[in-house]
């Protein structure tokens, strides 16, 4: 196993992985540290939540957890560039919709031009006009 970069909703993680013709297999501990999910007899679990997996054994072998099968089991979007040893995993469509269905705006933390960090929630108690724009 050698280093592999996993871009995920919380940032990016370096973990151990094996890249072969039949896919990318990642170190279960690294995957759990990055995303919180781990494989148990009953399925993929994170905190109190477990998602049943039809054949848990098929998800992992001695080389690690099959990243594509893992993403598919949880309905997570996945993009992989095996040669560059990097992949990006997102949140499921259902999770995104549920977040957007909540009346509360998702919070975020971003820097200004001087590098100072600001949170949307810093402005709780005021009306906020949130404006996304770009130079393009």
């Amino acid at each position: 196993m050698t280093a592999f970069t996993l871009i995920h909703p919380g940032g990016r993680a370096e973990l151990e992985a094996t890249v072969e013709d039949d896919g990318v297999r990642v170190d279960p501990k690294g995957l759990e540290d990055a995303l919180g999910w781990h494989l148990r007899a009953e399925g993929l679990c994170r905190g109190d939540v477990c998602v049943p997996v039809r054949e848990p054994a098929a998800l992992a072998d001695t080389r690690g957890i099959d990243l594509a099968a893992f993403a598919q089991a949880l309905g997570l979007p996945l993009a992989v560039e095996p040669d560059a040893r990097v992949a990006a995993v997102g949140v499921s469509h259902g999770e995104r919709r549920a977040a957007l269905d909540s009346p509360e705006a998702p919070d975020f933390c971003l820097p200004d031009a001087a590098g100072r960090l600001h949170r949307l929630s810093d402005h709780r108690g005021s009306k906020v006009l949130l404006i996304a724009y770009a130079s393009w």
Partner: protein
Amino acid sequence: MPVTVALDRRPQDVIPLIEEVSPTHPSLIDREHVLAELFHITNVPTILWIDERGRICRPHDAQFGTDTFTAFHGKRSGPYLEMIRRWVRTGEGALTADEARRLRPDPTPESERARVEHALAWHLSQAGEADAAERHFRRAGELAPLDWTIRRGSMPVRDMNPFGPEFFALAEEGAPAYPMEAVTPTRAEE
């Protein structure tokens, strides 16, 4: 309180604009398109109204603060600026939670796949893997053809001109539109 967020991969593209205006409100830079992902933003400008409780009370709308490009997009800034002033003074114009939910843009499984392809492409671009990056930028655009944060927003890092022929070819395919744009009365012909 206005909070502006620039969806620019390269801060150097937008910092001169910020310095020219030297705003007193928070003026943020979102290299990683965090805002686009969290809110399902597909073009700029995108404006959301958020009330004192932190709730979205007028979802994604593409409106403008000036009339510089009215001939291009057909919207006038005056009526919208007046709506904002009324909201700030009286709260008028805020939607109920149900209305705001009904009028928000809806992500799809494909749009979520496009976002991870885009994130991967950006990572590869920064790592100097231009050919691989280009493949994933293209894939992202195929998955979300009407997401200009991806298709136009990636042009500066792909040696394309976001105001040049590539942009006009993109515009020929049709522009992204939010449900709110049919509701907010700013069309020049109205």
